[in-house]
Structure formats: C-alpha cells, structure tokens
C-alpha cells in the first residue's frame, strides 16, 4: 500500500513540474482537455462501470453545468467558485428530479429515456432564445477568478494556471472517486452491478442507491461542464451534440468500465490520438466507431480490465 501511495505521489509530482520544462501552449491545451474529459468520463464510468446502468444523459449534464455556470456569470456577475458549485449542484438537482422516473424504467427504456433527455436539452438550448440565445451561443464568459479575503485575487487566465487548476481538480475528483468506490456506498453500487436481485434480497435499497449514483455522477459532469465553459469562454448548443457522448463512451469502454486508472488511460489516448492522426471530423468518428466496435467484441473489459485480470492472475500464482 505504501508503494502505491509513493507511486501516486511521484506521478503527481511529475505532472506538477511538467509545465516548468517549457511545454508549448498547445501541449498544455491538450493536457487541460484531457483533464476535462477525464472528469466527464469518470462520471460516465460511475454509472456504467460501478452501478451497471448505461446512462446516455452524462453529456447532457455536462452541458447543463456549462450553461448554468455561463448564465450565472454573465447575467448575475456571480464569482467563479459560486458558479462552479452552482453548476455541480444544479446538475445534481436536475438529475435528482429526472432520476426518479427514469430509474423506475426497465434497463432498455432507461437507455432510450436518458438519450431523450439529452435531445430535449439540445432542443431547449436551441429554442429558448431569450435565455440561451439559441444557436448563437453565449460568448464572453469570464475566466475563473478567486477572491480570497486578505489576498490579491487569483485570476486563472494563462494556460499554465489553467493547467494547475485542472490538475488540482482532477486530483480531487480522483481522490473522491477512489474513496467513494471503496466505501459502503461503493460496495452497494457494485452489488447492484453484479446482481441486482441478489443485492435487493440482501437488503440493499437498490433504487435509492441507483438514484444516489445518478445524482453524484451528474454532479461530476456538471462541474466538468462548468470548468469547460470558463476555459473555452463560450457555450453553444453544440455542447449537447452526440460527439461528447461518443468520445466519453469510447474513452470508458476502451479504457475499461469499472476501472479508474483504465479510464484515465483512455482519456489520454482518445484526446491525444486524434491530434497525432490529424484527422478531419468525419473520418475520425468513423475510426472511433471501428475502435469502439472492435473493443466491445475483442476486449469487452477494456484496457484496464485486461491489466486487472493479469494482476489478479499473478497474485493467484504467487499465493
């Protein structure tokens, strides 16, 4: 266990000093995008990998978070920390409300229903022009600023400061995620994934835990969306495009649903890969489709699942 903590700390230290070696702002931008997609992917991973529910609404809550944050900061001049929290709790609140009917559905209808929610969000953002300005989007979102009493205000505007901000955020999310999965709550989640009827018969209040997981997952997607809005400084209805869902899906499935570090690896692969391939959007999504298709047939547990199985086997051989 000590070794593992040491490993985590050294990885963190490595990422901490990374900007000091003089990375280009383009590389920093990629790393920031990896961070954002990592949080979004873990939000999806919580549902499919640990509760066993395929929720296609994850990227909808990403957009809801972005819109809440953008609207608050533009119309009410709300400070960034407040916007950020409001986006997280706002998304969680929406999820808590729509989750009650959705989670009553059979797993088939749940998939279709969550997709419908994403489409409704898209329609609302396009047509509620008095609030969202429709397809024109909301430009001019301010960069994150922190006002701590007694200290000068910290403005996160440069790429390096954005990088450190998302690094801290990712660490917090991952720490929270690992703790959550190891807790009583996480065990309840996994029992639902493995066998819902059995879990129910053992006294696990399955519908309550499914609802909790849906809400927590949406909180994560909401804060990722909020930060995304304050990084790109612009939000429009394209945030509800299926593209975000597709990228999240491929990250989690190829990375390994139900493994934390596999999904981290997936986020790195699928943010960097297209940059190397330098592909146009259409061809990229065709290739992504093939990767997803091959992955679901050949490595259904993903990269993380394969590594976990190897480790388990080695431990069994040793023991």
């Amino acid at each position, binding site marked *: 266990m000590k070794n593992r903590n040491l490993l985590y700390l050294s990885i963190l230290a490595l990422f901490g000093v990374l900007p000091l070696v003089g990375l280009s702002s383009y590389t920093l931008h990629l790393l920031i995008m990896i961070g954002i997609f990592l949080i979004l992917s873990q939000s999806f991973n919580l549902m499919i990998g640990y509760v066993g529910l395929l929720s296609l609404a994850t990227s909808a809550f990403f957009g809801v978070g972005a819109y809440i944050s953008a609207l608050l900061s533009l119309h009410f001049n709300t400070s960034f920390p407040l916007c950020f929290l409001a986006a997280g709790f706002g998304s969680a609140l929406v999820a808590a409300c729509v989750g009650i009917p959705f989670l009553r559905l059979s797993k088939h*209808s749940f998939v279709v229903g969550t997709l419908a929610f994403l489409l409704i969000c898209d*329609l609302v953002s396009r047509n509620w022009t008095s609030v969202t300005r429709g397809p024109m989007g909301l430009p001019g979102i301010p960069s994150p600023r922190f006002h701590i009493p007694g200290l000068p205000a910290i403005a996160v505007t440069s790429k390096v400061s954005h990088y450190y901000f998302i690094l801290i955020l990712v660490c917090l999310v991952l720490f929270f995620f690992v703790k959550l999965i190891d807790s009583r709550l996480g065990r309840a989640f996994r029992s639902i994934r493995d066998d819902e009827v059995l879990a129910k018969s053992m006294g696990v209040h399955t519908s309550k835990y499914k609802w909790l997981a849906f809400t927590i997952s949406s909180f994560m997607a909401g804060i990722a969306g909020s930060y995304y809005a304050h990084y790109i400084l612009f939000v429009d209805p394209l945030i509800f495009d299926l593209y975000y869902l*597709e990228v999240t899906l491929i990250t989690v499935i190829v990375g390994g649903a139900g493994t934390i570090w596999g999904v981290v690896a997936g986020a790195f692969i699928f943010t960097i890969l297209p940059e190397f391939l330098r592909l146009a*959007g259409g*061809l990229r*999504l065709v290739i992504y489709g093939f990767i*997803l298709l091959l992955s*679901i047939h050949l490595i259904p547990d993903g990269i993380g699942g394969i590594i976990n199985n190897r480790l388990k086997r080695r431990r069994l051989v040793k023991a």
Partner: protein
Amino acid sequence: MLLQHLANGLLISGIYALVAVGFTLIFGVLGVINFAHGEFYMLGAFIIFFFAGQMGVSYYWSIPLSILASLMVGILVERTSIRPLLEKSFESMVICTFAVSMILMNGTLLIWGAEPRIIQSPLSAPVSLLEIAFTYQRLLVLVVAIAISIALHLFLQRTKPGKAIRAAAQNKEACQAVGIDIAQISRLTFGLGIGLCGLAGALVAPVYSVFPTMGQIAMFKIFAIVILGGLGNVKGALLAALILGLGESLIAGYVSATLKDGLAFLVMLFILLLRPEGIFGKAVRTL
C-alpha cells in the same frame, strides 16, 4: 387547411410506421435496441440518390436496388457485429449498435458530404384532390406504407414464419421446445426490419431532401414511437406512428414548427413517467 395537414401527417406516419415496425420486431425477437436502425433508412435514401441521381438508373429500378443494398449492409452488420454479441450483456449490444451507427453515418458523410441532396422522381407531378395538394410520389409513399402494414399484419398472423416470429418474441425456450430455429428466425426478423428501412428510405428520398443525419433524426422519433406503443409491440408501434405523425403535422401547422420536434420527446417523457410499458403494452413488472 385541416385536411392538408392531416394528409401531410398521414404521409409522415407512413414513413415512421415502416421504420418503427422493423425496430420493434427486432427488439421483440432479438432483444436488441438497434441504435443503427435509422442509419439503414438513411442508407436506403442515399443509395437511391447514388443510383437514380448519380448513375442515371430509373427511379423505379433504383427502389429494389436500394432495398437490396441496405439488406446487404444489414446482413454484414448482423453477421460481424450483432450475432457474436447476442449472448453477452444488453449494454454491450447497445454500445455495439451505437458504434455501427457512428460508422455508417460518418462514413456516408465522408462519401457524399453534408449538403442536402434532392432527387427527381418521375412521380413529382402535383395532383389535387378535395383541395389537398399532393404529388403522385407522396401518394405512392402512402399507398405503399398502408399496403406494407396490412401485408405485414397478415404475414405475422397467418403465415408460419410470421407466427414463429411472434412466438420467438414471447418465449424463446418454448419455441426451441417445439422445434423453431431461433437463430434463423432472428436472421429473418433482422432482415425484415432492415429491408423495411431501406424501402422507407427509398420512398421518402424524392419527397424530402437526403442528408447524412436524417437517419439520426428519424431514429429519435422512432424511439418515441416504440416507447409510446410499448417496446416490441407491433400494433402499438403502428398506432403510435399514426398518432405522432398526425400530431406533429397538426402542431407544425397550427402552433409552431419548432415545437413539432419537441412533441415526440415530451410524449415520450410523459409515457415513461405515467405508463412505462407504453399505452398499448401490457403491464410488466420490472425490477
């Protein structure tokens, strides 16, 4: 004006019905939510564009070619992607068909580009009946949709393969006990569903413009229809297609065009909230 809106709505209903029936049959027999279903409809329309618009084949000959080509792609997809996963979890099948949809849609986008295409049909001449403006093409769509619906109903009720399909949707073990080849019935159902999609695409191509995302847009409506009619319920799907098509047309005509697309999802949400088994479905206890 009311008659005109009803006529337009009936046309849309016909298209929805052709696509939705296949979707709901495939769900009933294979237990697969086919996210790629709408792409076969799109493919049917684009193959018509390829033959009639680019190769200069006559429109009538293009229709069977289009159905055949969609069927070939469908069989390829079934063989390579769907059949190996039938025994696996439901979620992996959803992801699989989602991936197929990504490939087909973006592949079409790469080949033919994003701009909407117009296809000329020899039946584009306008016709007026009881003050309803129509084209012969629209009339053809309507007639074929109704004929196919009736034929399908007779096929499912009267013929042996049709009865086998209904039986497989009800109870697979019992089917095997009386000697029905489930694998064969699954293939037949999938082919039937995809063929209907190809036909719908081929018929609709000269009426509306053809573009790569048309399959996705139709797919979302189809979801609403099968939820409304009850997943796996053929009669429910036909009725729901009629309701949604007419409803959309009336709302577009009398309220607003933007609300038209929202109707499907609002209806879907309310059905999911109040009657998750669909309005025509039997109540099933879910976990």
